[in-house]
């Protein structure tokens, strides 16, 4: 049975699409047949980050409306063997998504042998975001270490546990927190919320902490999901998160200020 994972946040610009691209690539690279769906109808970005923008012929809405079949719309990723992308429509509006239509496509994907279905949610708490989360078994809530983002994530968690299909059946959606753009130095200075603060406020399981890194922006501009950059801390942190998602026990990294070099320590002592 396919596991449906929604990547959501409430607030925009916190790294949902970056995370969707990285996590779906990571799961596929571990040998699981995976599809990532862009639910951001009208503002599609996932295809750009996955560098398949020019290969989009049919999209999610075409499939829902029966104008194309799934096989025509799915784009095979060039880097990860088992990964497929279902792009959003740039020309429709979000009302094109219907509960019945989305359900039919998720069922078709599951029947097609996909093990993981990643739903990249648009920002906000309106129809598009609601459609992305409605069928989820697990939610990855992406938050930045700042008060407004954490507050919006809290709101999303509330909606998730009250409005989703699982909630309607009296079940709970599994939830986990991914903290992105984390800068331990700024946390130490008190300019940023720390991991423990965020964990305490949201009272939910921590999936991972992605350190703030230039490589993230570079990767997204180049259209290479950052998880492929195995040298960068951000790529490594996403890789750890994927391991945890697949049930492995991996210790959290990149949460504290790195040890200063010998020279810096000597300099500090003499100053």
């Amino acid at each position: 049975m396919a596991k449906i994972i929604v990547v959501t946040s409430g607030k925009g610009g916190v790294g949902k699409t970056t995370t969707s691209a990285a996590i779906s690539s990571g799961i596929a690279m571990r040998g699981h047949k995976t599809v990532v769906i862009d639910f951001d109808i009208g503002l599609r970005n996932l295809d750009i980050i996955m560098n398949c923008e020019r290969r989009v012929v049919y999209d999610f809405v075409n499939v829902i409306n029966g104008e194309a079949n799934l096989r025509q719309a799915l784009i095979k990723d060039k880097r990860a063997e088992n990964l497929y992308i279902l792009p959003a429509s740039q020309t429709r509006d979000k009302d094109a998504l219907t509960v019945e239509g989305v359900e039919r496509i998720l069922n078709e994907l599951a029947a097609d042998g996909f093990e993981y279905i990643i739903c990249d949610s648009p920002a906000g708490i309106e129809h598009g975001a609601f459609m992305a989360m409605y069928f989820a078994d697990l939610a990855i809530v992406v938050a930045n270490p700042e008060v407004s983002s954490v507050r919006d994530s809290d709101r999303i968690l509330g909606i998730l546990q009250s409005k989703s299909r699982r909630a309607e059946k009296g079940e709970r959606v599994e939830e986990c927190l991914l903290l992105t753009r984390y800068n331990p130095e700024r946390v130490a200075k008190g300019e940023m919320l720390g991991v423990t603060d965020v964990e305490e406020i949201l009272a939910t399981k921590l999936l991972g902490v992605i350190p703030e890194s230039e490589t993230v922006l570079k990767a997204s501009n180049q259209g290479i999901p950052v998880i492929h950059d195995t040298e960068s801390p951000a790529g490594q942190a996403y890789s750890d998160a994927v391991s945890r998602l697949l049930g492995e026990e991996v210790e959290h990294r990149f949460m504290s200020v790195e040890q200063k070099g010998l020279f810096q320590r000597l300099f500090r002592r003499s100053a």
Partner: protein
Amino acid sequence: MPLLKSVDSKSSAASVAFRLKGGLFPLTLLEIAHYNCAEFEQQLQSKAAEAPVFFQQTPVVLSFEEFNGDIGALPLSELVAICKSHGLLPVALRNSNTALQAQAKLLDLAIMPVGRVKAAPEEQAPVAEEAPQTAVPVTEQPAEFSHSPSRIVTTPIRSGQQVYAPGGDLIIMASVSAGAEVLADGNIHIYGALRGRALAGVRGDTSARIFCQSLEAELVSIAGNFKVDEDLRNNHWKAAVQASLDEQTLYITPLV
């Protein structure tokens, strides 16, 4: 829900002469079965002798539901005078006819809607001056505050969510997030941090309390008397506390 009133808001204390507030007070009904001046006075006198503590300017509502006889011919002013001379203070009329209501108007008595005891506090408002609240027998709690099931919530209350326990206590075995609201007719127990809004005794129960493991609230209110974040921050912030009401003042006291 009763109106909210800030306990120590500086601006309102200086400029606002009064404010209207909802309240729920138990009132005694004086059911008149039939009326004969001498007989009524004699029976009332013996009743007063039995329970002198009760007959001290006690507000009562005159009810004529069971009345036998010509209700229009009833000398209301005489009846009211006898009541007053024996320590009962008629404040309103119930189940009366139009002739009696005209008399009541002359006597400054309120008219209660038929058979709805719950509407009593609002109806009492016009004559509130006549009915000193201290005389209200506090032992008679309205039925809706007792024997009601508690509501237990085991999951966190998230921003934007509202949880209400009608007629009873609300027990939350997790935190209440900023931007969330929890309400109960009775007490509220929070076995976690209270970061949102908590309103206990929303239907006027002034004996309701709020308990929490860590006070970080946006607002705490009991029976319409509230304190907001900036009033709360100075005392026992992030401590385990209870909030209780005494004489319209909201007190925050540590639990240990």
